[in-house]
């Protein structure tokens, strides 16, 4: 509110109005500048030098300054500036090195006033002193900056940058004597206008040329620089060493940078190559432009805010020979097209999911928050103008944490390591695996193994009668909820809004920062917060409390870490819930089509106690030692699919391998392959290389076994010319030398080659083994103490 009012006062009676409009110029523009009252704009280029009046609906050509039958190179402008105090005064920088001033008050057609030809090379930039009428500064390709007193015929002082070309010079808006100059070699220098002998300070701002710089109109310490390295940097110059406080990475070299009036953190940039758009950035949000103007068809060469207190009008000239007035409200907002959804797994299986808040809150089931949206912290003042804010993209971030104890994947690793998949009789394998599962407190799996043994073993097996007993001894089944859902809601725009609020209520910030990640910001709700500062603060404090509420609430909502002790006699066959990286899919699936398998991980909606439900209980009464093994096949197949569906491919694959021929034909190859692939992938994620290799070896799918045959190539470089060896391992195509010569027998090694990683000598495996038995030193005589393990 405050700012808005300031704008209106600043503009006073002559409030600017207009629309997005453009006009064709006769030639490409190199630079533009506006006069102080924002009614006229001057366009300068190699073949153009004109003044246009800015009217409500259109540009109107007022004056052509390029006069004469054959205009001289003095008219070929690299830069132009309109004096901000004296409305008849203009200065141009010519490509031939001349600095020219123009007096519009002259009665003659030729308005040229003074001509300074002191620079030897192209002048890149001219700059009037913001408050001093007669002071003009120029920066040239020849590495010099000159200060002219327009009452005299020549420069009053010359500043030598002691380096190559000056690309930009800018008087500080606040410090009367200071100006900044940017250079082609990446440096920025600060000069005191009274001391031409030496710069006050210098720092390297960019790699490669710094094409432009601009002082912040309000904050005296801030200087924005733009360079060929595609970066815009904001420097705090108040400290002893220039400190980079913001950095925006653009997609092309930055040709111009201009702070947006009345908006502390906004600046506009345009590029010199390839990219024709004009971007307005909020420096605090360096990854996405706040607004984009996409009208130009060729590179934009000049940008200027129409009025120094009005942030809504931007003028631009371009190589495509057009002059545009852009209305800020017509700008494209790239953030609208940004994808606010994101998904990521943490190291320990945690899952973070960010989605548009509106999407999530529409899911009524997920947020049965009593008391409305009280938990949303409310700390923003009314946004003065929605178009001035970063588009509302607050996302809710949900983190689904795996329970540290019950849901660590330890069991997976242990199981993988301890299971026996081959090498013993079937019954023993089953027993062993059942034991392993039992020890890891996975009774269901254990039971499954036992049952498998019974089903497929010789019916005369004496252990059979023990089954019922063992089943009935099943103990408590901890029901594990793999995920605790923690609703962490935070806005993508959090930071920026925090910053914005800083201006008005700085003390808020102290609270804000730490709470940041837990606070959800919802701009819609923010409307409620119109009100005094005090209230906002209070509300904010409330929000922090809410943070705890949030958790307790979720405890209510969730069956978190609850252990269900089921009656002993119940034949509980509920499997453990596994979590693995395929969980999200799993999660959705559960919601979508298997509501009866409730109590699943991350199940937030259903709070009803979990009904126990048994999959193979049907088989129980049918069990009979007389049945042939093949009778069980369909049921085993179903069971395997079930395990796999639940994410326990480990079980599925292990059983598949142990049962081998007994079951293989029952399951189609693709499914098998799929299971194998998933399991191998998991094993490899846990770096269980040996187990994964064993599984690959034991698998019968051709697609899987061939995994062991791929990428077995070891690329080596020739030991002489250090270039990659292509065809054969032992002779280099390039230098035709046998690269791998045995250090012991000096013959070429064509089979197993072993070499020391310390000294790079090696040879036949056998020879090296023998050698190192008797000697500790390298057989090549290099003196290295090789080790063979």
């Amino acid at each position, binding site marked *: 509110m405050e700012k808005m009012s300031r704008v209106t006062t600043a503009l006073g009676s002559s409030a600017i109005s207009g629309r997005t409009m453009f006009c064709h110029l006769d030639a490409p523009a190199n630079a533009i500048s506006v006069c102080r009252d924002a009614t006229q704009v001057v366009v300068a280029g190699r073949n153009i030098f004109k003044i246009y009046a800015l009217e409500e609906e259109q540009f109107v050509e007022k004056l052509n300054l390029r006069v004469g039958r054959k205009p001289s190179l003095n008219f070929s402008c690299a830069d132009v500036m309109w004096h901000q105090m004296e409305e008849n005064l203009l200065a141009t920088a010519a490509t031939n090195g001349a600095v020219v001033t123009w007096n519009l008050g002259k009665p003659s057609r030729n308005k040229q006033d003074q001509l300074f030809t002191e620079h030897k090379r192209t002048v890149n930039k001219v700059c009037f002193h913001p408050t001093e009428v007669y002071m003009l500064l120029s920066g040239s390709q020849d590495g010099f900056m000159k200060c002219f007193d327009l009452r005299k015929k020549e420069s009053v002082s010359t500043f030598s940058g002691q380096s190559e070309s000056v690309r930009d010079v800018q008087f500080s808006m606040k410090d009367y004597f200071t100006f900044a100059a940017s250079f082609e070699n990446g440096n920025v220098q600060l000069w005191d206008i009274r001391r031409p002998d030496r710069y006050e300070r210098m720092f390297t701002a960019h790699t490669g040329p710094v094409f432009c710089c601009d002082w912040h109109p309000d904050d005296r310490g801030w200087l924005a620089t733009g360079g*060929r390295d595609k970066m815009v940097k904001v420097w705090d110059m108040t400290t002893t060493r220039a400190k980079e406080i913001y950095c925006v990475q653009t997609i092309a070299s930055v040709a111009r940078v201009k702070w947006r009036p009345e908006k502390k953190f906004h600046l506009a940039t345009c590029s010199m190559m*390839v990219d024709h758009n004009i971007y307005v950035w909020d420096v605090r949000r360096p990854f996405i432009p706040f607004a984009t103007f996409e009208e130009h068809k060729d590179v934009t060469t000049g940008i200027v805010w129409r009025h120094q207190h009005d942030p809504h009008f931007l003028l631009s000239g371009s190589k495509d020979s057009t002059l545009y007035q852009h209305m800020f409200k017509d700008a494209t907002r790239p953030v609208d097209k940004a994808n606010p959804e994101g998904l990521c797994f943490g190291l320990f299986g945690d899952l973070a999911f960010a989605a548009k808040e509106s999407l999530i809150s529409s899911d009524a089931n997920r947020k049965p928050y009593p008391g409305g949206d009280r938990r949303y912290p409310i700390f923003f003042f009314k946004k003065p103008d929605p178009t001035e804010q970063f588009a509302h993209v607050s996302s809710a971030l949900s983190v689904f944490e795996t329970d540290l104890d019950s849901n660590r994947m330890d069991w997976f690793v242990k199981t993988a390591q301890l299971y026996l998949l081959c090498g013993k009789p079937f019954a023993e394998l089953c027993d062993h695996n059942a034991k392993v599962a039992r020890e890891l407190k996975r009774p269901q799996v254990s039971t499954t193994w036992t049952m498998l043994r019974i089903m497929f073993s010789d019916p005369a097996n004496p252990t059979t009668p023990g089954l019922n007993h063992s089943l009935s001894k099943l103990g408590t089944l901890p029901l594990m909820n793999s995920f605790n859902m923690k609703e962490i809601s935070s806005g993508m725009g959090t930071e920026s809004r925090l910053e914005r609020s800083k201006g008005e209520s700085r003390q808020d910030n102290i609270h804000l920062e730490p709470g940041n990640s837990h606070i959800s910001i919802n701009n819609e709700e923010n409307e409620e917060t119109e009100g005094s500062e005090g209230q906002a603060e209070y509300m904010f404090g409330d929000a922090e409390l809410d943070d705890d509420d949030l958790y307790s609430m979720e405890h209510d909502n969730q069956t978190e870490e609850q252990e269900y002790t089921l009656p002993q006699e119940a034949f509980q066959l509920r499997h453990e819930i596994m979590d693995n990286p395929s969980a999200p899919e799993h999660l959705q699936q559960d919601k979508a089509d298997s509501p009866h398998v409730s109590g699943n991980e991350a199940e937030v909606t259903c709070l009803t106690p979990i009904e126990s439900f048994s999959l193979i209980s049907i088989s129980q009464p049918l069990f009979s030692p007389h049945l042939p093994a093949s009778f069980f096949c369909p049921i085993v197949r179903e069971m395997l699919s079930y395990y796999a569906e639940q994410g326990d491919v480990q079980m599925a694959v292990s059983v598949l391998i142990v049962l081998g021929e007994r079951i293989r034909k029952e399951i189609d190859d693709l499914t098998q392959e799929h299971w194998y692939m998933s399991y191998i992938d998991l094993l490899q994620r846990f770096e269980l290389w040996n187990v994964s290799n064993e599984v690959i070896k034991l698998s019968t799918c051709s697609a899987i076994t061939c995994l062991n045959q791929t990428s077995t190539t070891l690329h080596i470089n020739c030991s*002489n010319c250090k270039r990659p060896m292509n065809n054969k391992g032992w002779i280099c195509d390039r230098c035709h030398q046998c690269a791998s010569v045995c250090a012991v027998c000096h013959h070429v090694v064509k089979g197993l080659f072993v070499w020391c990683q310390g000294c790079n000598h090696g040879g036949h495996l056998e020879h090296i083994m023998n050698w190192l038995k008797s000697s500790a030193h390298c057989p090549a005589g290099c003196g290295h103490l090789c080790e063979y393990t």
Partner: protein
Amino acid sequence: MASNPAAGFTCQANGGNTPGRGSVYGDLRRNRSESECDVGQTVKSLARLCSRDEEERAAALEELCQGVLLCLELDRPGSARLSEQTLLHLLRLSRSCPLKEVRGRATELLRTAKEQGVEVPRALASGPSAFIPAKEMLKEGPDQDILIESFLSLGRVDHITMVMALHPAYLSCFLRTQHALLEMDGPLPRHWRHYIAVMAAARHHCSYPVQQHSAGFLEAGGEESWLSGLQHAPTKLRSLQTLNKLLAHRPWLITQQHIQELVCPGAEPRWSLAELIHAVVLMAHAHSLCSFVWGCGLNPEPDHIGGYTFQLPSPSHLPRSPCSPHSPHSPAHEDGRQELVDGAMEVEMLMQRMVELQQQEEECTQEEMVTRFERERSESIPTAVVRGAPPDLVLRLVEDPEFRYEDFAPRGEQAPPTMRAQDYSWEDHGFSLVNRLLPDMGQLLDEKFQVVSNLTYNRMAMHEGVDTYTLRKALWNYIHCLYGIRYDDYDYGSVNVLLERSLKVFVKTMACYPEQTTARVYHAFWRHFRHSEKVHANLIVMEARLQAALLYTLRAITHYMR
């Protein structure tokens, strides 16, 4: 100086008359097949000679000697066992290896072989350059370190390296860029890169780089048949021909249509922009390198065609040898004392002018400035001799060989528009585009341009402590002027003042028709300057030309991307 023995010599040295043996490719082919069997051992020890380990090198040298001696002792009829390629390698080592002991041993071996009755090749040239006497090279030559370094890293020290080593600062960034262009990651396959370089060098009838890159092409696994004619190369490569032609001779004619034909979605076969930039930089690099090779009169490598002979030296040939101390090519000793005095006067004059130019505050009209530019651009500089047809091995890789640089008509209607340096410059525009499409290459080229434009030893001929900036700038801008690039802030009058006519002849020949450079042109300018200073001038021409060609192409690409 009436007769011009040097011209004849150069002609021969550059492969103008290939002695009656098979084509290069025949040789390369034979060499390859030989090397696969019995020469393997020798080649192996040759490669090990480049080891950084001193002992390893010594061992390799020993092995090489043993191998060669073994071959000789077997003494079966003729040189059956000692292959031609081994002999050439030995020859090359004996001539160019910067390591003294290797050089000595190789010479010794060759002598032994000769005594054993083996027909031993003999290098035709006595140094890297036909223009610069070998002794001068040694005298002005740099410390051997940089040569040893490049021997160890590249496996050989070629003539280009040897001559450029007069300016070590430049050499290192030149080699870096070349290595990045040809060997490092990039969108084009390695053998394609060499082939493109071959195509480009062939435009200037420059057999030196053609042979070098042909070898590189084969080494990278390229197909031999491609080298026997363009028609054997893939269509995609052949579609580069137009661009190659324009880039070599009249880059200002390159428009966005040319780019579009190669890049636009309908084009068949289609180039990606990154590939195209890579190819363009390669071609421009090869073209400008041709300027350097011709401008310094580089001799063929001892193992190149035209670089060696198995015939005994004819007695009449000897006096022509450029290494004789009082050779007519040695610039300072040309026609006795009068010449000397004149030359010294010239240098004085030039320095005087440079000083004057820096002080002068003369104002002249725009009209006058334009006229001066136009005058320089269209000044007719007689180019030397029109050479005979280029060797066949080069000619079959050229399409439309009649297409050459053409003088700008003096302010005529048909004169193509000048390019204003301020509108499209390397620093502001070119760099960004190259770096965008071919990461790092922009940086490397930028560095090279900077090194060359800042290179100075603050001396001129016999004077020390001279600021040569204006002279270097005049050279650079004159070359750009020949290519139609105009700097608004430069007074082209100073080109006329600073660059004497003979220098202009040299520069224009080198920049526009490098294949017509002769020893006379080289020796005629700057007669009192050191050879290293003339090489410096060569470097400026080479880089200015490279930049001009790149600017035109990059501008066309920018327009295409618009």
